[in-house]
């Protein structure tokens, strides 16, 4: 006979989900929400007073580095960082070694995540074999193993004809393609945004048009094929404007932006610190404003971290040789709260809208209601803290926010069971 599960109540908080906000307690047991209402009690109490109780956050763009680059991050450390950041689900990018381009790699990652993960891991698959942009990867087979999002992230599919076929094929099997928008010929050799700073610093740049040109091409391919498409980490005013026009025309397009693209500019590269090297690169003040505006007016659908751990010795290479990417999982929420968006909108970008894009709604992104899986984060919006690169849960240290004072911290994360309690990761 199964033992009766111990019930836990998340008590005293304000519940926020896609349906709005209300004061309520939440009781869960066995990984499922049992009751939502006022003055609920249970054997175990998790204090949520003064806090927001929301569906767990969903990151569409996480590099877990396992398999292949375990010195930078593992599924265990990356998901722990995610849980501490309030995430109950992350979509793992396929640029591992080997690439996630076969069902075997998908299954390995799912098995490891089930064994050691602090949140759920949804592997994305590569569009092309080895992310080389030449042959289609076995998308249907990977889809049967649960993959819903396919991307060659890190290298956009350059061949327009191949991208067209990929979109048509994906549409037929009901999955979504996500593009890292960059025209390689225009971006060639560029290590930062091309502009006043790159010219002054003598660092070869990549122009905004490298991103925008690819966005424009892919919008036309969506128009041609009718297949849905998700744009990863958009960073330029022009590409956001193009997405707004395409959405107004009714095309099935979604888009994400990353916190570093609304908090940092290319001026951060002035000391040649490769911590600030990322792809797409940090852009200008005007682009930062455009990203913020896109979040205010709903041009974009999600905020994704592009959490990209790199070992310190790689980030200490000369700027033009160091790999691009920065940590994001543990700082994203607080940076979003700094934007002063209505809380329902901020959480829409971090939780239920990305859950929709990842096609995992039902398991993640709420609602907070009876019978729904207990994937919840409890946020203290007034808690102030200072980012300390050395105390992050990620195995790497490449946060661009070291020493920055932030407001808003995850107090508890529940992914079936508590993965973070009082700000501490649970083993």
């Amino acid at each position, binding site marked *: 006979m199964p033992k009766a599960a111990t019930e836990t109540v998340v008590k005293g908080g304000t519940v926020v989900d896609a349906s709005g906000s209300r004061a309520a307690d939440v009781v869960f047991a066995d990984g499922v929400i049992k009751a939502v209402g006022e003055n609920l009690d249970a054997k175990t109490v998790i204090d949520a007073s003064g806090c927001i109780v929301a569906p767990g956050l969903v990151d569409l763009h996480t590099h877990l580095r396992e398999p292949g680059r375990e010195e930078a991050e593992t599924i265990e450390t990356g998901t722990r960082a995610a849980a501490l950041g309030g995430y109950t689900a992350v979509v793992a990018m396929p640029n591992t070694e080997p690439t996630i381009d076969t069902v075997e790699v998908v299954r390995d990652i799912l098995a490891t995540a089930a064994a050691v993960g602090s949140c759920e891991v949804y592997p994305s698959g590569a569009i092309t074999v080895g992310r080389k942009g030449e042959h289609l990867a076995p998308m249907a087979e990977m889809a049967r193993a649960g993959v819903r999002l396919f991307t060659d992230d890190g290298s956009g599919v350059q061949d327009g004809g191949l991208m067209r076929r990929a979109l048509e094929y994906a549409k037929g099997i009901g999955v979504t393609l996500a593009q890292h928008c960059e025209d390689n010929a225009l971006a060639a050799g560029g290590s930062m945004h*091309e*502009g*006043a700073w*790159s*010219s*002054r*610093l*003598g*660092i*070869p*740049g990549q*122009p905004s048009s490298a991103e925008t040109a690819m966005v424009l091409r892919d919008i036309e391919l969506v128009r041609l094929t009718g297949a849905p498409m998700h744009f990863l980490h958009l960073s330029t005013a022009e590409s956001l404007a193009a997405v707004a026009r395409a959405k107004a025309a009714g095309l099935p397009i979604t888009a994400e932006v990353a916190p570093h693209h609304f908090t940092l500019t290319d001026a951060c590269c002035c*000391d*040649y*610190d490769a911590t600030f090297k990322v792809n797409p690169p940090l852009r200008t003040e005007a682009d930062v404003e455009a990203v913020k505006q896109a979040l205010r007016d709903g041009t974009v659908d999600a905020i994704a971290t592009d959490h990209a751990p790199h070992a310190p*010795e790689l980030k*200490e*290479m*000369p*700027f*033009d*040789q160091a790999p691009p990417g920065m940590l994001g999982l543990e700082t994203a929420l607080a940076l979003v709260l700094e934007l002063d968006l209505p809380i329902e909108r901020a959480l829409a970008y971090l939780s239920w809208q990305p859950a929709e894009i990842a096609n995992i709604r039902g398991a993640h992104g709420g609602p907070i209601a009876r019978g729904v899986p207990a994937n919840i984060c409890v946020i203290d919006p007034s808690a102030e803290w200072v980012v300390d690169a050395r105390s992050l849960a990620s195995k790497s240290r490449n946060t661009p926010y070291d020493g920055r004072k932030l407001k808003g911290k995850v107090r508890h994360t529940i992914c079936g069971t508590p993965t973070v309690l009082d700000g501490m990761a649970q083993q």
Partner: protein
Amino acid sequence: MKHLLGIDDLGADGIEEVLKTADTFAEINRRAIPKVQALRGKTVVSCFFEDSTRTRLSFETAARRLGADVMTFSAASSSLKKGESLRDTVATLDAIGADAFVVRHKSAGVPAQIARWTESAVLNAGDGQHEHPTQALLDCYTLRQHLSDLHGKRILIVGDVKHSRVARSNVLAFSALGAKVKLVAPQTLMPPSLDDWPVDVTTNLDGALDEADVVYLLRIQQERMDQALLPSLREYSQLYGLDAKRAARLKPDALILHPGPMNRGVEIAADVADAPNAVITEQVANGVSVRMAVLFLLLNADGDLLSA
């Protein structure tokens, strides 16, 4: 000043101080035994991660004439080839005992990175497409020998500005001393943005020659054809090469400079390079005095210049 990473570390006053100090060393360099002991007991590491014979020899000569010990680090035969990181290399050289790092690297910013990792002084001897401050200082020194004051003087910098660390340092140094700098290059060899650069710009060399007091020619590299930045060296030479015909249109006392090594027949015609108003070998000679001045100011600013 702790390091010399770029011309902005000096400012106009700092440049003047270097030039004045270089005068003293130029006098020493004319002696029968051109050597002092101002940096005796100091160790200067010559850290050339990118090959350069001219600049390396100039720096090493400068250090030795000041009585410093010189440790030569050659990237080609070093631990870097064995996979050692830049930071570990710096720590190793520091542990052996370095007072100054003279750094040349093909990537912009490496001297700035090294300056974060060491207590020693760091001198930028050329980093990628960023800066080459001692080249600019020796160019200023050379110009001052002939023009006494650069205020209001019109200087053309002609050629591959986009990829040139020499151009970046010289724009800053010449303008700090009051000169009016004009960049002359095809659009493909201009930096993508010139916002905040204290310069005028033209793609037309012939239209700019008459007014020039100085023509500073940059080296053009074959690589730029491969990158489709130029159709051919021949076409470049036709539009931007300083040949005898163009040189004849200059003011009679206009000076011609080149940081070397020259491509005779491409950016500069052979007879122009050898003309009396071309001061290219003076630049090289002045390089030693100027680098002595910089090393001295960084390592022994309070010391006695001429102590034996």
